[in-house]
């Protein structure tokens, strides 16, 4: 008993140290976002919500948020549909061809971002895909689709292959089998892939900094421009909002999962 508590204390201290190192720099932006004056001083001298008001009223910031969300949602939709289809195809293909196709499709995850970005930029420049929405969508789809392929492939590999045979033997064609049997079985993988795709697009800076123009900027680019050109605590407000939202997204499944199990145990 004593021994286990002592070992626990050592481990606990270590865990706290690691957590502080990881989280503390992030949490610094929270007080700064509530600063009264236009300064990055920490801790701030006075408190206000001016920078939050600015974030949601300044057309520069609101349009960047809008662009990021629009690009993120569209990229998520495209990646989820194409990535799931690709994963299904790869799964059925099997063998060496499947490994090759997977390698090609997943390459953007391994190739350094700057290399992809420069390549994308040089080609898109010629195709006149810079500075417009389509360019962002295509570039982000390429960069985000590996995440969907990887998560859906792993879901498929743990799904009983006999389920599709069973559906077929019961008279279901390929489409009905997919919608009623395969998709529900791989839904967790598809969901995780979609989330990763959105985050990848929302977070993407390198390709976006090549493709951006004053007319179309995603939120990370606007933040980058802001932090290099001016002292504006609005960037701290943006960071705080993103921090809150991502924390909520991570914690949400943990809470929703608990509820049905409680219901099941009470009945």
């Amino acid at each position, binding site marked *: 008993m004593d021994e286990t508590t002592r070992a626990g204390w050592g481990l606990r201290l270590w865990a706290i140290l690691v957590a502080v190192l990881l989280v503390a720099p992030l949490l610094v932006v929270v007080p700064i976002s509530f600063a009264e004056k236009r300064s990055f001083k920490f801790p701030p001298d006075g408190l206000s919500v001016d920078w939050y008001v600015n974030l949601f009223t300044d057309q520069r910031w609101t349009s960047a948020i809008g662009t990021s969300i629009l690009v993120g949602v569209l990229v998520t939709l495209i990646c989820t549909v194409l990535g799931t289809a690709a994963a299904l195809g790869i799964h059925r293909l099997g063998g060496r061809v499947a490994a090759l196709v997977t390698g090609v499709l997943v390459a953007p995850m391994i190739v350094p971002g700057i290399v992809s970005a420069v390549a994308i930029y040089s080609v898109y420049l010629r195709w006149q895909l810079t500075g417009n929405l389509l360019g962002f969508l295509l570039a982000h789809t390429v960069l985000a689709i590996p995440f969907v392929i990887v998560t859906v492939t792993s879901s498929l590999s743990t799904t*009983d292959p006999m389920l599709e*045979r069973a559906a077929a*033997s*019961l008279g279901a064609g390929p489409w009905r089998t997919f919608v*009623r049997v395969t998709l529900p079985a791989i839904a967790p993988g598809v969901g995780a892939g979609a989330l990763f795709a959105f985050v990848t697009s929302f977070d993407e800076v390198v390709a976006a900094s090549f493709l951006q123009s004053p007319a179309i900027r995603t939120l990370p680019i606007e933040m980058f421009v802001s932090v290099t050109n001016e002292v504006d605590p609005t960037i701290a407000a943006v960071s705080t909002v993103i921090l809150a939202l991502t924390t909520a997204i991570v914690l949400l499944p943990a809470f929703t999962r608990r509820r049905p199990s409680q219901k099941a145990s009470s009945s």
Partner: protein
Amino acid sequence: MTDRSATAAQPAPTTRTGGVRLDRVTKRFRSGTIGVDDVSLTVEPGEFVTFLGPSGSGKTTTLNTIAGFAKPSSGRIEIAGADVTALPPSKRNLGVVFQNYALFPHMTVRENIAFGLHGRGLSKAEIGARIEESLAMVRLDGLGDRTPKQISGGQQQRVALARALVYRPPVLLMDEPLGALDKALRDRMQVEISRIHREVGTTFLFVTHDQGEALGLSDRIVLFDRGRVVQVGTPAELYERPASLFAAEFLGESNVFRGELAGPGALRFGEQTLRCMGDGPASGSAAVVVRPERLRLVGTADASGRADASGGAARGAIDPAARGAAGAENRVEARVVNIAYFGAFRRVTLRYADGSSGLLHDGVDAPAPIALGDPVVVGWDAEHAVVVPVPAPAEHAA
């Protein structure tokens, strides 16, 4: 054959459904190995046919070609009179029960059963009625709202059966459906499957490697070995008249005496000539197969190995007359290696002079007082000794 009269006497099912015909079906895999080798087979409507064989013998692959999960490299498959060789599984209108049941985990029992009723032009009321009817058939009334995870393995098996039969397919395919169940449950499900087969009148094709299931369930057994059909017949035919050493050894247990044929119904075994059924081959290497329950203890042999069946003078242990074994046409010496008591019978493991081992089941009445290591004489009648060819001399030595 004669023993199947019991089946014929059972009440006839309401409707006889379609049969299955395989015509020279061959399945070559991409690796070049042959899964199914030139199999032709006719299954009558309403018949219960078992595909029996060791793993890798082609029984499941054959079933898969019928289901449409595997495309035959050549040959033709007919179901209920229609050529289905080129049809996908979804268009073959078959019921399939999978080894691990393959129930849809995100659907309730009722939704699982309802899945196959979709797109068959049934009204909502009819669908509901069919589901309840099939739940009742497999005795799962009241469990319709559970999910597969909330019911036991045996219940999942019943759901799989109900799901595959609810749309009344002409043929039901089952791939080792009892493999995942424990022994007691397996025996109960065998009885259930037999009952359901009688009730629905559907043609059942049942794949198993378990000879007990095959013997207990089937109207006919199709025995597979290395991609080929080696024997087709009723359970009694296969058990009592195995056509090959493989059939004899795979289905049931046997005493095998290897030797050279010396004419129809006579096999040279060492210095003896064993009398056996005369309708087999008349010359060449062969073996005589005798089932353990056809073998009888007819006497003891003295230590020098000389047979003494003249009334048990050597030890006075076994009185052949009292055991009703006086008429045994064939007698062979053996040594008792093991004795195991099974309640209904006693199982004596024997070693013969040529080094091969054998088995004898003797009844519970007046068991002869034999002990381990005892030299004994066992006997059997020619009508219970089947001659099978022995393929190669190399195997003969082995």
